[in-house]
């Protein structure tokens, strides 16, 4: 048991993605219990903040998300140790995040974005930090870093299929998969051996 198992991660397959953004929406849907987001679009009262991002160009479309790097540059860049590996997933602890943007700049995939923090459908205010708005000092909005956490905190009781992240589950064309590096590598090896 000396081997550290590499983290699983979600990755998209080129050529399949149709750009429907169902993955982004699903990602948002399953991460917003605390904002009262349930099944219906009508329960959404906060901006859609996905943790994966569908890139679209003239020639292709593909979602990009956290690769759960083993030597995560985001965690290296974090001055408050808000990014930690937990059960094989790089997790951002939103309470600790100070919105310094270092992780977002360090990530080579562009997988981290900064956005306002919401709770109960409302912007989370700063403890003290205020800014001037319309001639009054008001508490600023807390801003945190968002990224894929492999739906680790997701409640799977509502028709979810085991431990598959929501994006993988909803993709209508199967363009996303959850990769377990150890098993996939051994499968690739087996496949390579069989081609010999």
């Amino acid at each position, binding site marked *: 048991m000396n081997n550290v198992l590499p983290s699983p991660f979600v990755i998209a397959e*080129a050529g399949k993605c149709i750009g429907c953004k169902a993955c982004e929406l699903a990602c948002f849907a399953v991460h917003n219990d605390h904002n009262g987001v349930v099944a219906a679009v009508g329960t959404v009262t906060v901006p859609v903040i996905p943790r994966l991002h569908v890139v679209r160009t003239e020639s292709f479309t593909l979602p990009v998300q956290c690769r759960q790097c083993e030597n995560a540059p985001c965690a290296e860049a974090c001055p408050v140790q808000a990014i930690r590996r937990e059960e094989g997933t790089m997790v951002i602890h939103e309470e600790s995040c100070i919105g310094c943007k270092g992780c977002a700049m360090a990530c080579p995939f562009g997988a981290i974005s900064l956005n306002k923090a919401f709770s109960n459908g409302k912007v989370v205010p700063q403890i*003290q930090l205020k800014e001037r708005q319309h001639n009054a000092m008001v508490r600023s909005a807390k801003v945190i870093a968002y990224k894929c956490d492999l739906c680790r905190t997701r409640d799977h009781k509502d028709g979810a299929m085991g431990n598959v992240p929501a994006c993988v589950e909803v993709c209508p064309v199967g363009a996303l998969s959850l990769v377990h590096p150890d098993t996939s590598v051994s499968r690739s090896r087996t496949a390579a051996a069989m081609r010999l």
Partner: protein
Amino acid sequence: MNRFVIADPDKCIGCHTCEVACVVAHAGNNMFLQDESGADFYPRLTVVETDEVTAPVQCRHCEDAPCANVCPNGSITSKDNSIFINQDSCIGCKTCMLVCPYGAITMVPAHKGGQKQLQSGLRSNTAGAWRSKERIVANKCDLCEDSGKGPECVRVCPTNALQFIVPSQIEDSISRKRLASAQSLLQFGGFSRL
């Protein structure tokens, strides 16, 4: 989102030009012209040299600025997409300095019009004499807002190691990286076979 200055250690040569520029930018050019030579020297960024890295460290203008959130009297606020210390109301409690994870805040004597500010009430005993105590206030990068020319450190850095990041640049950089990471996957396919 806030703007901030950040250094690229691959380009920094540790020449300290930024530090001097910072002092000069905040002292005004009359720093060189005053008769008194004892002007204070408190750069708002500090060049750090370790075995592995050389780079100036300065305020990141955190969105959830811990300094502002611990300030007991609202002297640190969000202003024009930056975190701003009001030195006039700072009481010198040092808490912001302690909580800043970048070490970007230092405590310095307050100045006004080139003169050290003294406290009206508080006195301290030095060398047997009672004197009004200096005001000590928190000091950090203010993006040279008053100059209207942007951060002086960025302007003078001879190796372009310092960058002034505005929010749209972060967005752009993230978009570019997303595009690049998506493109890098195009040549592959069939991960589902794994």
